[in-house]
């Protein structure tokens, strides 16, 4: 399993994942209902049954990860966080059902609209949910915490690994006798991104990141780790739900806050005012220390998008459309330039 530093919306991988579902009438019979309609929605299926609406998910992680995710959800519920979905237990009381070598589970279907970060009201509501989620996450003691789910103090290690990977990919591209459009874009930006990565690592070492991680470890708090607009659902009667906890990890809360800011920056043309608004809104609910703010600088500086898209192309060799890859590579590479400007401004204001 590979966990990403922050999650990207990726329709292509959703489609690939959906293709792996082994949908069969017998699966639904085993679940104890009759299915009337099956509709794909991102990486899940909405199923309409004689007993109501459900969300069907295939397990994409090993069992110990799923146990971790499910116990995180249980923990949130136990702490009074009612903005997460419920797992629908099978007739025998299990959370999962095995079918033809795969495992599936059901959650209640939350009908509503996806959050829109361009809408200030939606964004504020999302921040409130995130702040409450972080508070409720404290005191989480899973029976087993898979190593990949424990990120306390690991940012330097992950930064390092990714820098090394970018260097390896650069070597690989340089060795190619004929360079494609993607190769050329990669080479144009690789040095700049490697430098940014190294600088991020250096800045991180000068912050109090370690003590923040230790504090979070004492508090035993976890984060959502994929707090994207499509994982926040507004129902039409005014309730808000955070969904898809597949990537939740034990880490400092600034990881979620930083990712939320970055997601918004990409849509708002790196508007520092908006970044500050998000921080203020979060701070009103969950006060943020200046030490925490400083950790955001290396987090923002690290060329996560560039590393990820390059990795998907050169290492994972995803079978995606070349034109799509070129577009993505080009957009994400350009972030490197604008991000620097944004960080300069951001540093002045924190």
């Amino acid at each position, binding site marked *: 399993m590979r966990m990403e530093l922050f999650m990207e919306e990726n329709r292509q991988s959703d489609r690939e994942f959906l293709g792996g579902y082994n949908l069969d009438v017998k699966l639904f019979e085993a679940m104890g209902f009759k299915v009337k309609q099956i509709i794909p929605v991102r990486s899940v299926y909405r199923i309409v049954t004689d007993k109501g609406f459900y969300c069907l998910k295939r397990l994409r992680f090993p069992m110990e990860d799923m146990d971790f995710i499910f116990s995180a959800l249980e923990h949130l519920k136990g702490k009074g966080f009612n903005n997460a979905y419920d797992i629908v237990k099978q007739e025998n009381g299990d959370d999962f059902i095995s079918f033809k070598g795969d495992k599936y589970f059901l959650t209640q279907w939350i009908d509503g609209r*996806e959050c829109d970060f361009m809408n*200030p*009201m939606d964004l504020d509501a999302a921040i409130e949910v995130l702040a409450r989620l972080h508070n409720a996450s404290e005191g989480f003691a899973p029976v087993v915490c898979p190593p990949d789910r424990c990120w306390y103090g690991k940012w330097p290690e992950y930064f390092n690994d990714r820098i090394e990977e970018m260097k390896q990919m650069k070597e690989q591209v340089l060795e190619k006798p004929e360079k494609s459009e993607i190769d050329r874009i990669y080479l144009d930006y690789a040095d700049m991104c490697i430098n940014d990565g190294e600088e991020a690592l250096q800045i991180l070492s000068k912050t109090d990141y370690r003590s923040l991680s230790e504090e979070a470890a004492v508090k035993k708090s976890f984060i959502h780790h994929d707090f994207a607009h499509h994982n926040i659902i507004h129902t039409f009667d005014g309730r808000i739900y955070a969904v898809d906890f597949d990537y939740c990890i034990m880490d400092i809360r600034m990881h979620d806050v930083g990712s939320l800011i970055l997601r918004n920056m990409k849509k708002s043309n790196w508007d520092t005012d908006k970044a500050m608004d998000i921080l203020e809104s979060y701070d009103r609910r969950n006060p943020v220390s200046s030490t925490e703010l400083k950790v955001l600088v290396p987090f923002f500086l690290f060329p996560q998008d560039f590393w990820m898209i390059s990795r998907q192309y050169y290492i994972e060799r995803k079978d995606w459309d070349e034109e799509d890859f070129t577009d993505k590579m080009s957009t994400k590479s350009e972030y490197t330039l604008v991000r620097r400007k944004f960080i300069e401004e951001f540093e002045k204001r924190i």
Partner: protein
Amino acid sequence: MSGGYEKLKRHDLKLLIENLYGLEVRNMQEGDRGILVYTDRGIKRLKGTESDEAKILFSASAYEHVYNNGFRQISCINRTLNGSCHMKYDKNNYILQDFTKGRVYEANTAEAAAVAGKALAELHKAGEYFIPAPGSRARVDWGKWMEKFKANSISLKKYKELICLKEKKSEIDKLFLENIDKFLEKMQYAHGLLKESGYLDKVRQSMSCNQITHGEFKKHAIFEGDPEGVFITNFEECSYDICEFDIATLLESFSGKNKDELAAAAAEAYSDVKPLDEGSMKIIKAFLIYPKRFFKVSESIYGRRKNYNEIELAQKLARSIKREKKKEEVIRFLDFGR
């Protein structure tokens, strides 16, 4: 079939429609807005759509909502015998609607503009408290305009900086540079106007009553209806938003020398049904001032750069500048007309 629907096999389609909708298809004929299907239950229009099932379900339930709320100048999406709102053929989605005869509505007199304004207000009234069918994917535009105006003006500033750095400037670059400052000013003004006019309060109100809006309420969406009425089409693009967006789109679509008079008549007729306050008028003005066409073309030239054709884009840019200018008369009505 010929033209845009040439890949469709007439016989396959006939059987599919008959089986799915329980209709007897007597004839089919391609029109400029889809395929006309002559059935035992009247003439239907089959239209291809790029929307997925969840989006179609959203607009189909919006159609049904406004219709059931008393707005009858609209033709709902027909459901299949098993309740689905679309049919799939050769991997594409299609919707079937009752066909309405008539031409695009000519709103060239104050009376005609008033009819369009009144119809829009009635559509908005019927569009309140809309909750889509479960499983729909809602199109939502609530609250995004202020931020969008700002983000887009940042983009244009960035393009300007890049062009200024170029040693050799193309014809497009020159045209862009000649006009950019004026449009940036407009964008900032429109953004400021939204901010001070209580835009977010209007969004809050609209969110609290789940207001659905047309989304593309321009000339081609209005057809001649009963002797004195109009018929509304293209509701597939409907979205959750504030009503002022639709009003601005309508006012902008008026053409001719008496644009300001038409705009005034439409706004007044709208206000008789659904009162517009000063804040609303300012918001409408902001939407009109915002140079969306100029931005859109500039974005395809300097932003996305997809299907880049310099000659075509230069013409588009020139056209967009002209059309932005044409809006000024309507804006003048908002300044002095009320």
